[in-house]
């Protein structure tokens, strides 16, 4: 019987390959063989003597003829994985996703479009939770040419996926694959997955994000890049430092902080901070305080965090006028110390009657100016100090039926804002200079414009990007700014030149957001390729790649001590990164929708996040940053993140957040009617 089947398989193979003559001969031979079946014993013996070979011929014939083999192979692998021991299950599950997408792409590449569709749709639910965005991308692929064309698919095909797996799980998997003779699966796994087999116990589930990622350049490259040296310390001779030295006016806790500064052990440290050698006064807005009231406790555990090393600026920084310096110093003295027990006050600016046209919002450092970029190409700036006066007089004086906006609207057409017109496309981002005298805006018309808030006029138009500019940010010291664009580049500019100073290329997709490091020597960028990168401003090199997000990055924030960075994505996940080693400190989960904005409090003890789910959340940074040092992350489920407070707004997605120098939190958002 077996022989017959085998013959049939061979016959089918010949037919399929179009070897008609061979087929005929084969047929003739078969017929002659059947005639004298008694004499065929020998032949049968021969064939039986090599059952393995026969089996292989059979499977070979199957795989060639039925694309559904992928389907079967995958579904068997899947059910085997799901029924495996819980201990190894989560490790084995990681294997499924790459196998799944490569099966799909193989089917596409071989031209079985309908089968690929069926396959895709029957198993996509398994991966929907983790990889929904990739799946929607891949879903569109419908022909081999698309595979070539689509960058994402292309990079997937080219690179291997790294999967960390323990010895035993690995052996289990191999054993299964051999036993079931699923050559197809074995082939895919062999071709596209790179196992990093580690001895010992299987790793915990919580490491999932790090353990597996699909990036074009691959984890290896990222690891290599992340080896590079980084000087994440703060600038020496900052205003805050001088304030600390001046001493007298400060609280005890801050003084001890100053003392602890010398205890710096970080190998990345470039320079200790004894004495301000720098001649020109440098403006420094934010400082390396993990401190405040809660800071003492934090310092006990890790000295690194408490005292940041000092570095010299690599850019020539602008000087600041003394009166401004004095006002900043005054602000610093009056700063409210925030901690997990003393939460900030939040002043909320609500945009009303935006008709869905508000694209972005920005708040000046003192909270007095609020800018809104609109889809009708306009940029509008409200002077809240002025409005506030009018509002309060209204409340005290004539308590009339008409509140602010109505009065202002009807007051002979007098507008409550200053209108900046110049862009020819939706304005996607706006950024105030630290002193509030300039405003930058970026638009889909691929330009960046500089506006003077003093003269209410456009001063410069920076052309350089070829595609919409998604984000623009002033450096913490002003003068320099960085822009991020759909053309996948980041450009660094200075106000006095119309050409960019640096072009940073490397992201594999749109660069969606950009943020300066506190010491102005680095720039962080978040992209649709789901990575965050850190760039050296001076050399223009990428020096860190942060991998872990599952969707596009929408917002970034740098901690005032320069060591940590927070990034928020489209799914509502916020990740806290350690800049020094490029690792994720902890994911902060809580938001249910896009995180539009992130801000660290001035002494770095709190992180505020504003989201499309109409909430502002406050997170305790001290606890979340401490954890990895005390190795508590390894133990898994200790509440790694600490959400201190959720402040819901009234159907107002939060577009922008800003801590003032005195630690008052400003937030802005557009009242939306259809949330």
């Amino acid at each position, binding site marked *: 019987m077996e022989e017959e089947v085998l013959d049939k398989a061979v016959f089918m193979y010949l037919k399929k390959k179009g070897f008609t003559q061979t087929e005929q001969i084969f047929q003739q031979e078969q017929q002659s063989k059947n005639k004298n079946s008694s004499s065929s014993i020998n032949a049968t013996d021969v064939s039986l003597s090599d059952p393995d070979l026969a089996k292989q011929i059979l499977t070979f014939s199957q795989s060639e003829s039925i694309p559904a083999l992928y389907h079967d192979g995958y579904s068997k692998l899947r059910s085997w994985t799901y029924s495996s021991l819980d201990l190894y299950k989560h490790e084995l599950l990681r294997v499924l996703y790459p196998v799944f997408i490569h099966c799909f792409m193989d089917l596409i590449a071989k031209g079985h479009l309908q089968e690929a569709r069926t396959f895709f749709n029957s198993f996509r639910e398994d991966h929907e939770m983790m990889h929904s965005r990739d799946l929607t991308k891949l879903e569109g692929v419908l022909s081999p040419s698309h595979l070539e064309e689509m960058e994402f698919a292309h990079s997937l095909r080219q690179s291997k996926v790294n999967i960390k797996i323990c010895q035993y799980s690995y052996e289990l998997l191999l054993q299964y694959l051999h036993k079931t003779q699923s050559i197809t699966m074995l082939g895919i796994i062999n071709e596209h997955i790179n196992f990093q087999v580690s001895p010992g116990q299987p790793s915990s589930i919580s490491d999932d994000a790090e353990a597996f990622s699909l990036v074009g350049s691959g984890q290896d490259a990222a690891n290599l890049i992340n080896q590079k040296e980084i000087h994440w310390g703060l600038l020496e001779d900052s205003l805050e430092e001088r304030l600390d030295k001046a001493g007298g006016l400060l609280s005890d806790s801050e003084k001890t902080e100053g003392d602890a500064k010398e205890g710096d052990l970080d190998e990345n440290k470039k320079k200790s901070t004894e004495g301000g050698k720098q001649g020109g006064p440098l403006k420094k807005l934010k400082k390396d305080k993990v401190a405040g009231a809660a800071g003492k406790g934090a310092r006990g555990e890790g000295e690194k965090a408490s005292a940041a090393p000092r570095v010299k600026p690599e850019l020539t920084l602008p000087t600041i006028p003394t009166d401004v310096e004095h006002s900043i110093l005054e602000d610093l003295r009056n700063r409210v110390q925030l901690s997990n027990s003393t939460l*900030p006050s939040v002043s*909320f600016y609500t945009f009303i009657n935006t008709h869905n046209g508000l694209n972005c919002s920005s708040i000046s450092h003192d909270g007095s100016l609020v800018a*809104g970029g609109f889809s009708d190409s306009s940029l509008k700036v409200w002077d809240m100090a002025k409005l506030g006066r009018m509002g309060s007089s209204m409340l005290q004086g004539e308590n009339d039926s008409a509140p602010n906006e109505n009065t*202002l609207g009807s007051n002979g057409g007098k507008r409550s804002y200053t209108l900046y017109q110049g862009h020819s496309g939706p304005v996607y981002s706006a950024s105030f200079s630290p002193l509030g005298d300039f405003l930058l805006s970026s638009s889909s018309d691929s330009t960046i414009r500089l506006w003077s808030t003093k003269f209410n006029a456009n001063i410069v138009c920076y052309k350089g990007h070829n595609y919409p500019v998604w984000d623009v940010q002033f450096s913490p010291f002003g003068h320099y700014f960085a822009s991020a664009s759909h053309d996948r580049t980041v450009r660094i500019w200075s106000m006095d030149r119309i050409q960019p100073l640096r072009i940073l290329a490397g992201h594999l997709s749109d660069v969606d957001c950009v943020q300066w490091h506190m010491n102005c020597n680095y720039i962080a960028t978040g992209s649709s390729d789901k990575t965050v990168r850190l760039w050296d401003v001076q050399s223009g090199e990428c020096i860190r790649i942060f991998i872990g997000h599952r969707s596009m990055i929408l917002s970034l924030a740098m901690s005032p001590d320069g060591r940590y960075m927070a990034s928020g994505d489209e799914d509502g996940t916020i990740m806290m990164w350690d800049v020094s080693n490029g690792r994720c400190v902890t994911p902060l989960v809580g938001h249910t929708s896009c995180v539009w904005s992130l801000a660290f409090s001035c002494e770095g003890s709190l992180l505020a996040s504003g989201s499309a789910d109409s909430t502002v959340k406050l997170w305790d940074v001290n606890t979340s940053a401490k954890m990895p040092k005390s190795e508590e992350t390894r133990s898994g489920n200790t509440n790694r993140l600490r959400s201190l407070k959720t*402040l819901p707004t009234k159907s107002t997605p939060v577009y922008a957040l800003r801590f003032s120098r005195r630690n008052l939190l400003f937030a802005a958002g557009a009242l939306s009617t259809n949330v």
Partner: protein
Amino acid sequence: MNIVEKESIEVIAQSIGVGNLSPDVLPSLAADIEYRISEIMQEAVKCMRHAKRTAMTSDDVDSALELRKMEPIYVASGDSLRFKRAARHKDLFYVEDKDVEFREVIAAALPKAPPDTAVVNHWLAIEGVQPAIPENASLEALLTPFDNKKPDYKEDGVSIDIKTPVKHVLSIELQLYFEKITDLTVSRSNSIIFNKALLSLATDVGLHPLVPYFIYFVAEEVTRNLNNFQLLFALMRLVRSLLQNPFLHIEPYLHQLMPSVMTCLVAKSLGNKLTDNHWELRNFTANLVASICRRFGNGYHNLQLRVTRTLLHAFLDPAKAFPQHYGAIKGITALGSSVVRLLLLPNLDPYLHFLEPEMQLENQKNESRRHEAWQVHGALMCAAGLCIYNQLKMIPNLFSPPTHAIWKSNGNDLTINPNKRKAGINNLMMEQTLKKTATGDGSVGGQHLVKVEVPGASSGFSITRGASDVGVHPLPRFLPNDTIPGSSGRRDKFGSVAQTSSSVAVARAWKKEINAGHLLPKLYDLFGESMLPFVLSPELCNIFI
């Protein structure tokens, strides 16, 4: 399975004039189009994200096409486009596209310009605590997220303690509400919807931020519209509703509110037409004032003092008009019998001397003024009667027999009394309207009418009197007609009080009550014969109060 079927490609090809498309091309074209569409949609998602939205609009698709350097489709943006599912087709959608008559569009008035963008400021949190202002999400919204949350991420600071800030900006909803209410008050206070509005004011939570605005509105409108009776009454009803609302904290605004309320009580003229029943308004307001004093008197220690001072001032000033006097008397009456006793009664005698001539036809030719005087007189009677009645109430054994007496009286009396009681229950005004119509039609004056009604009244009178074995007291000359039928056993009790010296039992009772013992004889001495009318009214007052 496919989003774009090859049949649709065929149709599209034909529609643009490509007839000879080979059938082999169709599937691959369909697949390619599908791929392109999904690509564009992914770009559109990016544009949507950068416009900080979570819902895609046609603008996003246009921007995505521009990103690809393609001509946008220029679809109308906004909510005007709504895709409808075609009947009986699962995946077929269409946009309803109505034919619009050009003439209509041209003839139609220009649509209102959309309101301009503005920024309003409020405190989302003060030191981490969210104040309970309408700009912030309500408490329910605060609580619900915690319910769906995974237990791991329970927040530490779930406590929702609420602070009220000093300054606030009104939300749009509240502004609308305020405008609606004020509009109703000004223009449509007769409508049913205004009653609904008052009910809403009296019961709704979260109106607190509007309180200062309402107070200001009332003050403003009262000063400007003293001759608009309708509006004044509506305003007072609005104030009453505000006071009824248990969620409002009115006390801080009382100093702003009181002047307008007092104005409606003791202003010289309220409304300009004769038909305007300003007496009713004054009565209403008097009760309002009294309720304010009762509610806030404890916390606001000089409130009642100031109110009574104002009222007394208005009452004692002979230069002021009778309506003002009336209002003052009503106000004092509403404040309670002790106030009446302390403030009104000592001044009653001189005042009556002042009032008396005005009420007589011979001395006062002006009919309306005489009418006013009668009104004041009625109010005084009511006040004094209330006072006395309350005094009497403290002596239970004096209180009970009279009621008995009524029931014992004959049928005639019985038919009269319940009617009057009912009238009293409904409104004290009844009495006055009755009086007014009486004076109105009997243009000769009140005295004629007295004669008309006296027979029925006196019959009831004599019977009750007989039952209580008290001698008949002669009626005063200018006794108002309608108070007589209202008389009951109570009055003849007082008749006996009037003759304190003769009734031993009553005198003994008086001595028990120190206050009453002091007051009532004195009162009687003061008023002499005119006492009797006051005696009549307590029954009514009692019922009313």
